[in-house]
């Protein structure tokens, strides 16, 4: 795309490309259709999660209720939390990102369309796995963060938690794949002129979110794997009676969990940053500060997880450090709020439903943010943690914040996706019922929390005011339920006979509005020139853009290489978790020295390290056009990798025969988990190298068609070797020192 015209610009071409029939939706790799699939599937899970919420509220409507028994109540709040976070909010945000990121940067599609389809299909698979637990002996019931030891077999003996783990692993893999795709898309597929300084804020914030996903999700995956090994193979990572640590689970969960909060919030910030300027008829105030504060939030989010654990007894010193860090996060968030307000200041405001939700977002999110700051003070946290004050706080952030942002975005972008405007009258009704219902439900929960009502307990005694406040909350929840119905009716009605939207109903200025509504399968006939942050405004006001700047070429990067680097970052986080666990449990034991044979493994390790060198030679040979050199060095590499794997297999064999198993001790649990996952990665690398060899033998690499794929797999192989250097050093060599 060196010129602004897409390759298949002719009318006939896209007529042809339009796929028809329901199967075309299953087989699609079009980012727009995948985006819509994400959104529709999320709506289904939203309905399920919403009904669960209403069941909870019916149970809590009055004191000493027995509408639900305690076990069912536990299952329902666990499913509600898990569903809303992993099956509703995250996929909804990914759905919007899928649909709009390529359009907003003037791209034809995502960087890896087929990977995109895979990411999507893992989502309903994960959802199905989670809900299959209902038919396999009961849903998970340990809460959405599945604290150990409650989530361990002695306390959660049905298979619900196992399905919970599997579902989250599947969803996690899908999310990471999707995030890698977003990163590669934003880095490599921007239209000419679209420098990073000019990308719409929704794109920027989605990009930062994708980085957070790539780094945070693997931490959860690592912990989930260990929990699963505990439950299925009787290890004791998170069980105190076998020497394991229950606090370690909390650390890992919140290392993921706190960035997750921003994974849920940042894209909504991005949506607000699109909606508010358009309906205020002003460019965003302080673009650099909104973009930069996002970076600050993302980095800080990794350093403050322990504020979720003030009640766990980390000690005053840790509490103090994390209190300070947490309060610091309020600064970049506050910067954003003021920027949005300043954007509206003096603007020509148009209170469409979308704008109404955006303004409501500002108010509700500030309330949620303020209650969040109160929690940053450890003593307040000790008093309020696990009460309804927490429930109120995170619903103000996740619902008043993220959901309101999503609704604003839906009213804003629905015309682009469907070609029809949503009904504004129904929309306003939707808005008011939502705002009233939401505040009724959750504002009173602040008071309930201060009065001491604990969360996650199926009922409560008839204390003064508790019944009344809870009843208000329940009525509010039903008002919200009614509002959601209105929203769905509005969508159904507008899809069929809404007012035609035209290309740019809001007179907006980002690139997605430059094409038809809905866009062609190939997105643009011609990408407008990008000379600033508001390309359509520049186009509409040629006189005002006084000097024509020339279109800057975007530095081109290979998407396969960008993708594999993002993947490596993600894998590195996964291995860091496994290595840290090993170190944590084996720092002061000498078990490794007693069981491991450093010399033999050292010999096999040399083979693996040598394979990085041979692979490098193979790459060199391919670049030089030396066919046989490439082939021979590659075969040699595969052989060396296979020898290493043989070494690992024989080592395992020896340990097994001497009676050491994954559940024997913490040393064996951590050893087999760490080296086993490394072995799995080597095996996958071998398969990938085999595929490359096969392609090479077929002559496919000659035309440089797949040469960047080879380079990408090479990087992955080197990475696996580097991980082994760390593992070998920590697990084996440390013992002889």
């Amino acid at each position, binding site marked *: 795309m060196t010129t602004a015209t897409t390759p298949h610009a002719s009318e006939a071409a896209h007529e042809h490309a339009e796929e028809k029939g329901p199967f075309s939706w299953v087989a699609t790799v079009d980012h727009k259709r995948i985006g819509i699939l994400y959104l529709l599937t999320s709506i289904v899970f939203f309905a399920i999660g919403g009904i669960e919420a209403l069941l909870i509220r019916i149970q809590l409507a009055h004191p000493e209720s027995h509408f639900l028994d305690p076990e069912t109540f536990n299952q329902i709040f666990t499913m509600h939390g898990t569903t809303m976070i992993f099956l509703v909010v995250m996929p909804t945000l990914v759905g919007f990102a899928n649909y709009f990121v390529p359009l907003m940067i003037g791209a034809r599609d995502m960087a890896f369309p087929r990977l995109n389809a895979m990411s999507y299909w893992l989502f309903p698979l994960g959802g199905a796995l989670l809900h299959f637990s209902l038919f396999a002996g009961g849903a998970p019931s340990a809460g959405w963060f599945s604290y150990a030891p409650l989530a361990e077999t002695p306390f959660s003996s049905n298979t619900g938690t196992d399905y919970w783990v599997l579902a989250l692993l599947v969803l996690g893999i899908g999310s990471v794949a999707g995030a890698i795709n977003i990163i590669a898309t934003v880095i490599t597929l921007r239209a000419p002129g679209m*420098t*990073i*300084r000019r990308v719409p804020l929704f794109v920027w914030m989605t990009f930062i979110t994708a980085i957070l996903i790539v780094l945070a999700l693997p931490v959860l995956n690592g912990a989930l794997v260990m929990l699963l090994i505990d439950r299925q193979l009787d290890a004791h990572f998170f069980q105190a009676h076998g020497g394991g640590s229950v606090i370690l689970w909390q650390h890992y969960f919140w290392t993921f969990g706190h960035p997750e909060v921003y994974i849920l919030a940042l894209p909504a910030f991005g949506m607000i940053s699109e909606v508010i300027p358009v309906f205020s008829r002003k460019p965003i105030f302080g673009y*650099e500060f909104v*973009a*930069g504060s996002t*970076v*600050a939030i993302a*980095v*800080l989010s*990794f*350093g403050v997880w322990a504020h979720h654990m003030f009640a766990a007894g980390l*000690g005053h*010193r*840790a509490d103090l*450090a*994390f209190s*300070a*860090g947490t309060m*610091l996060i309020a600064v970049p968030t506050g910067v954003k709020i003021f920027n949005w307000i300043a954007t509206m200041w003096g603007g020509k405001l148009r209170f469409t439903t979308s704008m109404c939700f955006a303004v409501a977002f500002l108010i509700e999110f500030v309330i949620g943010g303020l209650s969040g700051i109160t929690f940053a003070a450890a003593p307040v946290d000790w008093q309020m943690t696990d009460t309804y004050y927490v429930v109120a706080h995170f619903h103000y952030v996740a619902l008043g914040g993220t959901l309101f942002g999503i609704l604003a975005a839906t009213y804003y972008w629905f015309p682009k996706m469907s070609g029809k405007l949503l009904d504004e009258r129904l929309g306003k009704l939707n808005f008011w019922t939502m705002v009233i219902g939401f505040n009724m439900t959750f504002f009173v929960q602040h008071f309930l929390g201060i009065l001491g009502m604990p969360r996650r307990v199926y009922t409560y005694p008839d204390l003064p005011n508790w019944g009344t406040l809870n009843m208000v909350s329940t009525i509010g929840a039903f008002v919200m339920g009614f509002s959601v119905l209105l929203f769905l009716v509005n969508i159904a009605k507008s899809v069929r006979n809404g007012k035609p939207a035209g290309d740019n109903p809001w007179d907006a200025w980002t690139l997605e509005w430059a094409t038809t509504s809905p866009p062609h399968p190939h997105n643009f006939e011609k990408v407008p020139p990008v000379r600033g942050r508001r390309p359509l405004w520049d186009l509409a006001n040629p006189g005002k853009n006084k*000097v*024509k*700047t*020339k279109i*800057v070429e975007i530095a081109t990067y290979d998407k396969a290489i960008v993708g594999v680097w993002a993947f490596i970052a993600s894998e590195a986080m996964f291995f*860091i978790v496994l290595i*840290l666990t090993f*170190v*944590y449990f084996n*720092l*002061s034991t000498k078990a490794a020295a007693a069981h491991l044979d450093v010399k033999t493994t050292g010999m096999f390790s040399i083979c693996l390290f040598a394979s990085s060198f041979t692979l490098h030679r193979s790459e060199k040979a391919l670049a030089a056009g030396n066919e046989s050199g490439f082939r021979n060095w590659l075969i040699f590499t595969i052989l060396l990798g296979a020898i290493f794997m043989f070494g690992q297999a024989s080592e395992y064999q020896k340990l097994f025969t001497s009676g050491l198993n994954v559940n024997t001790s913490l040393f064996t649990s951590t050893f087999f988990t760490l080296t086993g996952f490394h072995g799995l990665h080597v095996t996958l690398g071998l398969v990938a190298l085999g595929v490359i060899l096969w392609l090479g033998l077929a002559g496919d690499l000659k035309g440089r068609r797949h040469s960047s794929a080879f380079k990408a797999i090479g990087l992955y192989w080197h990475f696996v070797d580097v991980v082994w250097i760390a593992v070998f050093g920590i697990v084996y060599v440390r013992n002889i020192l």
Partner: protein
Amino acid sequence: MTTGELLLTAWQSDAFVYAVAGAGVVAYAARMQWKLTRRALWLVLAAVVFLLAFVSPIGVLARGYLFSAHMLQHLLLVLVIPPLVLSALRTGSKEADVAPGAPGAAAASGARRFMLPWLAGVSAMWLWHAPTLCDAASNSIGVQRLQTVSLLVMGCAFFWPIVGPRSARRLPPFGAMLYLFAACVACTLLGILVTFSPVEVCSIYAHPVDGLGAMPLLRDGWGLTPKADQEIGGLLMWVPGCFAYAGGMLAMFARYHREEAADELAAKEAA
């Protein structure tokens, strides 16, 4: 002894420290041909911080009393002084910096240019906190001098690709952000290990030789048991250490926007 007395009395004189600071200032002045510029203020600031790190109670407590004070000193040497020194060395004009040779060649050697500095910066944190080396440094004054100098050198190496004097040899802003982030992860890991480790990183801090008579104050008044002391040390590396890198990342982000804005302006003026 009260806290006030400690802060007033616990100052020490150290010829080696004066020599290093003095040599640094003289070398800098000679390089700048004895002209006083505003940039020199950065160097003065670096020298002041360096002196405070050793002469003030931080330095006194770091010498055998408190691991946390040692960590604070360590962070100043690696994360605060080097960027100050490098800022002082920056030359004014941009054009004069451009390295001869094709830009492609510069990019090709890029990976090598930042791998070693990065490793230097991370090793500065990790190496000297291996219990053996940490003990060696606290037992021998020679090793301690070596530690001080090596930390400064490794810190400067680490920040060279970020705020090095020649802007053409620096990492592009987004690359610099990744560079800082990766270093932040590596140091956070060490901070976590030090905080939660049951093993003493430096055994000398468990049984200080109390020449000052400050131990009752530290142990009872401040409540710093050896374990608490090590925890604070780990947390210092973990939380404020991480924020130092985060601050660097934000500065790089600001630099990107500043440079792009300047480029856009230049393009407009050209057209």
